[in-house]
């Protein structure tokens, strides 16, 4: 049951990675997609990151009620959980909702209004023209968004931690700077690239094979988000298992 769609997905990717007709047209599309995926998602990523950091700090402080554990550990926990899990995974799940549904409904609408057929008739490799710029833009911009998210999560934690009196600014700074393992950042970036690839390709696949009308476009969009989220969580586990 899974093999038929998986085969179609792989064939679509193969077509998407075919040599572009004209690189300068694709470059323009890549820049447009970078703006749409990257700049367009900056606001929502900033908001969720600040709150994630704040909530993580307050809840960690609540659970660490012991004189034997220095309060700087809160900063350390926030830093590592932000780099390893919160920023790449939660940001990507949010992006699956925002970017994934947008990609799926855009390509799905193009399919049902025969715009993809029009591309094909002109002799244009439609998977390449429609999907490749989105993949390149996402695997470039999502890691950048994740880096911004890490910074803002820690900042949100700092604000919440110091404002609530859970720990002092000095304790927080000590926590986030002690015992830092830079490999966690590598893991985070690998996750970001993998999740970006999954979000764009799964959503594009759902949109590309939409048939029918407005109802089916909506269904494809929903399926794109659901399947992307599952794929993100599954690959999150696989990457963690392989790299840590």
């Amino acid at each position, binding site marked *: 049951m899974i093999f038929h769609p998986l085969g179609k997905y792989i064939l679509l990717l193969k077509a998407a990675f075919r040599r572009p*007709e004209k690189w300068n047209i694709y470059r323009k599309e890549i820049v447009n997609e970078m703006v749409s995926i990257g700049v367009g998602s900056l606001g929502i990523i900033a908001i969720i990151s600040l709150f994630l950091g704040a909530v993580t700090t307050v809840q960690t402080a609540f659970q660490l009620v012991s004189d034997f554990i220095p309060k700087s550990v809160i900063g350390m926990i926030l830093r590592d959980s932000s780099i390893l899990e919160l920023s790449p995974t939660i940001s990507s799940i949010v992006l699956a909702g925002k970017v994934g549904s947008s990609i799926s409904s855009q390509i799905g609408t193009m399919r049902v209004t025969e715009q993809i057929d029009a591309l094909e008739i002109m*002799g244009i490799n439609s998977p390449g023209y429609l999907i490749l710029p989105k993949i390149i833009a996402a695997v470039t911009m999502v890691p950048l968004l994740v880096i911004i998210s890490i910074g803002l999560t820690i900042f949100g934690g700092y604000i919440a931690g110091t404002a609530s009196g859970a720990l002092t600014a000095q304790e927080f700074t000590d926590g986030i700077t002690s015992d830092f393992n830079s490999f966690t950042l590598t893991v985070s970036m690998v996750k970001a690239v993998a999740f970006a690839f999954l979000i764009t390709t799964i959503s594009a696949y759902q949109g590309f094979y939409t048939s029918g009308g407005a109802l089916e476009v909506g269904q494809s969009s929903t399926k794109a988000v659901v399947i992307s989220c599952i794929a993100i969580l599954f690959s999150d586990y696989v990457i963690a298992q392989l790299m840590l």
Partner: protein
Amino acid sequence: MIEVKNIHKTFGNNHVLQGISAEFYEGKCNLIIGGSGSGKTTLLKCMVGLHQPEEGSVIYDGRDFTRMNFQSRIEIRTEIGMLFQGSALFDSMSVEDNIMFPLNMFTNQSRKEKLERANFCLERVNLSGKNKLFPAELSGGMKKRVGIARAIAMNPKYLFVDEPNSGLDPKTALVIDELIQELTVEYGSTTVVVTHDMNSVMGIGENIIFLHEGKKWWEGSKEHIAETDNKELNDFVFASKFMQALKK
């Protein structure tokens, strides 16, 4: 000239095209007519490669399109212009960018040359000055005309038109029909029009193929269509009270 030979196409258990063979002539408006579900659009899509027939071949001036590799197909497709039923204009692009799109992809012309060509095409379909509008700002008839302008941007050898008059008022439909006929003569293109509009049939039908239940039922010209004793064709042509009154 385009030849289709013994085309078979099936969707699930539905045998939509059952061995259709026909010839479509250069410099003529070739019409594919028939009732809903007769296989007109499926035949058109098989001809342009949007559907792959299970059997049979489509030959463009001696070149077998159905057995070509991807690259050779692209070469033929750059010689094809197509107007879709819903116009299929790219929503995110202005009228001008829609027309310039195939030129951007397949030519090395300067922006000025492409713009000149786009303006020429727009002028040809009587839409001068509408360059910067977006598809959402156009009426149905204007969309069709922009679709035609985009289809002729690359000087097509083969022009395909799917239901050009659907959703248009009779006067606009007539304008579109006349435009298709003029362009066919002007470019000497092999034009294939799928329609069930009898005004189009009587107006531009130089070579007409009537499909019924996935088979070619009749072939001829507009001059002969009214005189035929083919029952299915008569039922189709004289379905409306207006045409029945005209016959009497």
